[in-house]
């Protein structure tokens, strides 16, 4: 019984970590693309 609870908790924890990773890398990619956009507008 307790094993089941732990594995359920583990499963949710893993899922949360995946969601976190996807959000974070999307944010970083977004910022990078935005900086490239700024680059395209300026004369750097």
């Amino acid at each position, binding site marked *: 019984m307790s094993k089941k609870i732990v594995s359920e908790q583990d499963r949710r924890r893993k899922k949360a970590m995946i969601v976190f990773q996807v959000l974070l890398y999307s944010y970083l990619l977004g910022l990078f693309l935005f*900086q490239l956009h*700024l680059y395209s507008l*300026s004369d750097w």
Partner: protein
Amino acid sequence: MATTTNVFGAYNAHQDESKQAQWRADKWMIGGTLLMGTGVLGIFGLPLFFYGLWLQMQAAKAGLSVRPLIVTLIGYLVIIDSSLNSLGWAMDLFANHSLINRVLTSGWGAVFDGGYFWHYNELKMGPYTIGGAGAPGEKAWEISLILACFCPRLAAAIGLLQMKRWGQQWLIVTCWMGLIVWIGYNLNMTFYADVRYANITFPVWGWWIYDIFYITPFLALPYLHTVNREIFTD
């Protein structure tokens, strides 16, 4: 009784042998990491580190109880990450007129980050000469992150490599700090993009290719949160 003694004798011998093998591998990896942590001597440290890693893998193959490979990789990577940041930024703060800093830091700035190139060593705070990078906000990030993030992180990584529970817990804490670092630092760079990216060799993409290797915290978090914490001792 004799059998029990033999069993424990064999166990103790195995433990001793494992400890010795781990330390032998660690000596090479510590040496390599110290060199890589300096930045300048990094290229000489890499083969030493790989040799130590190979030694550890051989010991594991031979059936000895050595540290899990993933813990070794995360631990040493974090040490290198923290050392590079602490050392580089400490030089920018306190040794910004040294020859090595004027060549390497501002040279790096000319290629990747104008904040470390344009008006380098001209920063003043009221009547006080500060020097180093003059990009807006940079000095505040340097001081706060060395003190509150990278030094605790270095200690945490050493604790992790020793398989201590506090090492795992503090690495989790400082990995989450990494979230603030990446979001805040990059936003600051973006708002002052005209300072950071103007007239340098590789604007934008150069910085990202160079710095993306510092995302170690996010790569380590899933492991640190899902690992069986019982493998770390109190």
